[in-house]
């Protein structure tokens, strides 16, 4: 493509480009437009989600194919959105080109449910579907004003994951069961191996984000949000819990953030041997098996704080676009994917736990030594969700919590600032 052609050369190239664009317009009419011209069946519906790792896509495609085999009159187009998933979905919803069925994280559900863009599923559910089989706390995350808007496909809780070798090296055989034990054990596990004044291994790997800390602030009776959907996490009860985290980091110096040790996540810190314990989700297990195969790790329930068990639960549901033109077909897809058979096929990969208790039992997650602590956590977990203002609250919390962690402010100061800013934004945004 040489520039500096004589006028005729350049001009004809331009014309060629325009003609090319024009031709392509004819050739590439989007498939859905073509499908629309045909009869009502076969029906094509679109399914959107993200993928947590490259293998996931293959697995989901297999499950979809099994569905299509059973429903020859339905075609499923799987469209992955891998970046800014919610931004893209929201934009497409605004533009009326959103997928028929899509993933929705519990965190984001309240906003969409409130804006009435999802189809309530209650009327589609039959007794045969066995709704009672679902873990009820996960279901509740997708209820709004008494209606059910999504069916959770899987969930993950947090559990304590620790390096058995490092534990044995300092003579510890049992994982800590209370938070006080965790603090004590961390001290033993924080080691400067070569005496160069730099800690080589920290006891505990810390994730300084609200998503991982809500259960901590609830331990002494604190609440993240109040009755009227405003943030209340700066009250003394919440602070009591959070102070434990700050103290371990600042005073004991036995915990570390990922950026401190050059990692990008708690799992990575544990895998690289930079920390001896961390609290992570089920996704860590396939990650360790694949990326750090030599790591000798074990899991346990999150240590109790103030005598109370607590952990976080993250769940994602399939939801139906209220404006879909193929409600029956969309429902069939959702029903299959969250039915016993579909969920069983999906949950085999071990990235997250199935939300149906029967499938959980059948796949043996209750007994598996690695997964059992996660499964047990489902009973007392706090779901990562808190109304439509949570994103605002989370952003402000994360912002200031780090500041307290770094010692720039005291915890009460930082949290008050975060709470006030969040509440002001909530107030003004309404």
């Amino acid at each position, binding site marked *: 493509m040489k520039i500096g052609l004589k006028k005729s050369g350049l001009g004809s190239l331009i014309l060629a480009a325009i003609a090319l664009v024009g031709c392509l317009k004819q050739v590439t009419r989007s498939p859905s437009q073509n499908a629309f011209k045909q009869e009502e069946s076969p029906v094509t519906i679109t399914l959107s989600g993200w993928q947590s790792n490259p293998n996931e896509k293959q697995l989901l495609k297999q499950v979809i194919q099994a569905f299509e085999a059973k429903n020859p009159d339905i075609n499923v187009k799987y469209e992955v959105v891998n970046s800014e998933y919610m931004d893209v979905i929201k934009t497409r919803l605004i533009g009326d080109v959103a997928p028929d069925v899509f993933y929705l994280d519990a965190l984001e559900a309240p906003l969409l449910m409130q804006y009435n863009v999802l189809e309530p599923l209650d009327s589609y559910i039959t007794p045969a579907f066995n709704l009672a089989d679902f873990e009820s706390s996960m279901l509740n995350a997708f209820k709004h004003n008494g209606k059910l808007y999504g069916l959770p496909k899987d969930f993950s809780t947090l559990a304590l994951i620790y390096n058995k070798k490092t534990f044995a090296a300092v003579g510890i055989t049992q994982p800590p069961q209370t938070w006080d034990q965790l603090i004590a054990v961390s001290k033993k596990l924080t080691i400067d191996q070569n005496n160069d004044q730099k800690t080589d291994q920290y006891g505990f790997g810390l994730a300084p984000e609200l998503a991982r800390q809500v259960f901590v602030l609830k331990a002494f009776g604190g609440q993240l949000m109040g009755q009227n959907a405003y943030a209340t996490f700066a009250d003394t009860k919440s602070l009591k819990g959070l102070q434990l985290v700050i103290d371990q980091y600042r005073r004991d110096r036995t915990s570390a953030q990922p950026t401190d040790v050059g990692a990008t996540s708690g799992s990575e810190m544990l895998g690289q041997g930079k920390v001896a314990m961390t609290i992570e989700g089920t996704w860590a297990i396939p990650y360790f098996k694949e990326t750090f195969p030599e790591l000798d790790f074990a899991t346990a329930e999150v240590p109790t704080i103030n005598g109370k068990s607590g952990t976080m639960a993250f769940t994602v549901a399939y939801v139906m676009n209220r404006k879909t033109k193929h409600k029956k077909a969309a429902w069939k897809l959702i029903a299959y994917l969250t039915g016993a058979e579909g969920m069983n096929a999906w949950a085999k990969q071990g990235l997250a736990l199935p939300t149906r208790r029967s499938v959980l039992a059948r796949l043996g997650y209750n007994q598996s030594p690695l997964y059992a602590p996660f499964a047990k956590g489902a009973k007392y977990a706090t779901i990562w969700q808190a109304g439509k203002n949570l994103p605002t609250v989370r952003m402000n919390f994360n*912002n200031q919590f780090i500041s307290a962690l770094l010692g720039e402010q005291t915890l009460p100061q930082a949290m008050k600032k975060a709470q006030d800013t969040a509440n002001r934004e909530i107030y003004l945004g309404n």
Partner: protein
Amino acid sequence: MSALTKDRWRNRKAGDSLAGYLFMAPTILIAGVFLILPIAYAIALAFQKVQLLGDVSYQFTGLKNFVRIAQDDRVWIALKNTASYVAIVVPIQTMLALTLALILNSQIKGRSWFRVAFFLPTVTSSAVLTLIFMWIYNSNGLLNGVLSFLHLPTYNWLGDPNVALKGIMIMNIWSTAPLFMVIYLAALQDIPETLYEAATLDGASRWEKFLHITIPFLKPVTFFVIVMGIIGTFQLFDQSYIFSAGSGGPNDSTLTIVLLIYQYAFKNLDMGYALALTLMLAAILMTSTIIQRTLFKEERLD
């Protein structure tokens, strides 16, 4: 224009108006629909409280969104971050670009290779570049490795609020300077050799030639480089977003004004307010451009 007769002058004038618009036609059409129309829509929304998702509603609120700006702490933090960013990055990257262009325009051996090598950061998309830099800035990464090798202090580039923004600055200068270097290189080609030859005959030194021929000739291009530099840095988003995973942290230290706008627009779905902030940003940029325009007095058309 004195060579033309009066008649031809009048015809030329009328022909000029037509020609002008014909030349501008594609731009007017395309920019009108895809650039100006969206902006007009955005301006309209800035004066409203709008809900676009679900049951669409518009509610005229006048200046309420703008009053809110004055009371919003995070806006001022973002402006301060962005302003200090601009004040440091633009001069450095402009001078670096000019210096590199001058050096690479001369008879240095291997200048083609240097030009290609230097341009590598610019040719890479900013997303990819930021990811690469996340690794380099890793506490155990390349940069700290080199620093400690040289017995210089190391930092937690990603986690320490005091250095996070500086880390982004370094990355930005390094990746954007070559872009302006290329533009300066192109501009340097257009300076007629005859001017330099005449000056040499007059006994001018190299420095005098530079000051009196090169610099004035580069004025229009420098105007472009600085205006685009300011606009670009004021609109810093990608690096800040990837660096802080969208939060602008730690502790708002990497919060830039566009990141803030994005948070309001897409996270809170508070479109009206986000667009009011955008108008404020546009006003700031417009003012700065006008100021520069008067500083860089241009040759007017005859």
